[in-house]
């Protein structure tokens, strides 16, 4: 089974998967999650990666960041092969990324302020006053002022995600990866997080890759949709294409998950 890239031809791609295979050992031999997949992530656009549990969505993000290595194939970020990078080269590449982890991955021994300030303290030579100013501005934008001295354990799930987003966006990254950003949130908080995506993306203009189960809602934001199933990968520019796919798995996926999804992209419309 080989994944194919469609739909990204008209855009410049910033991330490109070329014949990437990734498998893990299991009780009955290797479990292949990506089988020679090819696709590109268009620059400045929102790409949503969807699929069932255990289909390799989060693995895809970890491969882009060099946190995992593929069994074979290349992953290019602006032509630079992530799979060949080590040490300082990999560290330099990662400076271009912001990441919002599934569980926010906040440092639980640091306060909200310290969590958001960490990338500034570690990566930029700023005075204490400048850091204070930048962090408080971000916390204001994400409606977190007043919570800066709290520890992650004292925050709700939605607040943790917002702090994670504040930290991910602190250095104005070119590419932001979101791993299940709305899992476990109520519908109101989910909408707030989506609003935040759109507002921050409009402001910074980053390329976004979002792994999400929140279908069909997440498709409203997407410029490109990547569906993963049993190592196979399909790329769509429009949710409508998913319904009309010739593959039985994808039609079944659409029937089960896309009830209430707009019939065409214009109907979906970004917020």
């Amino acid at each position, binding site marked *: 089974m080989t994944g194919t890239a469609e739909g990204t031809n008209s855009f410049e791609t910033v991330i490109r998967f070329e014949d990437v295979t990734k498998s*893990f*050992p*299991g*009780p*009955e*031999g290797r479990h292949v999650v990506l089988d020679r997949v090819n696709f590109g992530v268009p620059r400045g656009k929102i790409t949503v990666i969807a699929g069932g549990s255990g289909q390799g969505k989060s693995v895809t993000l*970890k491969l882009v*960041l060099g*946190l995992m290595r593929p069994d074979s194939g290349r992953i290019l970020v602006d032509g630079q092969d992530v799979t060949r990078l080590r040490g300082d080269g990999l*560290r*330099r590449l*990662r*400076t271009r*990324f912001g*990441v919002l*982890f*599934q*569980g926010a*991955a*906040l*440092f*639980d021994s640091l306060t909200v302020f310290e969590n958001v300030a*960490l*990338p500034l303290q*570690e*990566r930029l030579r700023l005075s204490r006053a400048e850091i204070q100013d930048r962090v408080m501005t971000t916390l204001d934008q994400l409606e977190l002022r007043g919570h800066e001295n709290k520890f992650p354990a004292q925050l709700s799930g939605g607040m943790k995600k917002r702090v994670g987003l504040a*930290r991910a966006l602190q250095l104005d990254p070119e590419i932001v990866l979101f791993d299940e950003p709305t899992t476990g949130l109520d519908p109101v908080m989910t909408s707030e997080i989506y609003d935040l995506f759109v507002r921050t993306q409009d402001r910074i203009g980053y390329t976004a890759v979002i792994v999400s189960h929140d279908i069909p809602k997440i498709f409203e934001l997407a410029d490109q949709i990547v569906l993963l199933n049993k190592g196979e990968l399909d790329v769509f520019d429009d949710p409508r294409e998913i319904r009309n796919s010739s593959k039985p798995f994808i039609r079944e996926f659409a029937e089960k998950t896309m009830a209430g999804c707009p019939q065409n992209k214009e109907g979906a419309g970004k917020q």
Partner: protein
Amino acid sequence: MNGHSYTPSVVPKLLRPVVMLGNHALYLLFDLGRMGVYLFSALAGIFRRPFRYRELVKQLHFIGTGSAAVIFFTALSSGMVLGLQGYYSLHKFGAEGMLGSAVSLTLIMELGPILTALMVTGRAGSAMCAEIGIMRISEQIDALECMAVDPFRYLVSPKFLATLISVPLLTVMFDVVGIFGGYLAGVKLMGVNSGAFFNGMQQSVTNHDITLGIIKSFVFALLLVWICSGRGYFVQSIRGAGFGAESVSRVTTQAVVVSSISILIFDYLLTAILL
């Protein structure tokens, strides 16, 4: 390679133990290799800038100051027991005057470094392993890497440096308190002559003995911080550790056991080489 293995179904049943043995040997080599790279990265991280002074002070406080009370009481009781046991043994030969020498040499060369390292392993090493393990499973270490922050310089190396500073100092404290305990039991309780006690100690303890004790404490400190923090760092890929919170608890137990056994083995080796 990682913490998992499998036996291909095509291998005849009789040969499967051989395959498993091979798998274990390969895993052991892989584990030793990555722990070696981990040790090198952690030591190199000590010299990378910017240096985290505040984190070092925090770790010195946790590992050093925090362990002082338990070291004090362990040293006092060990010294007093040595004083009493030594007195009864030496009394049979009328050699009570040698008590100071026996207590101080035993403490400085053996009990001080060993018991200090074992106590710090139990108190601070287990905490280090659990802390780093939880940071690993909750993706906090991944988050550091994604922010292009070196997790060794930021997280691991301050713990290494603090342990390498704290354990020898705690060992010196153990020796002093232990000798005081021996003095209390031997001189104040059993009536050994105070001058004979200190004179025996002064005559028998050489600079070489003190140096041996300090070298041992450095090696034990390195072993305990390496094994405890390293097991936590690799918690997700240790064979048989399981997943989530259970993996952290199992790996923490394993780290304390392996550290303690390594300290005892290295104690024998160092004594044999340096004595």
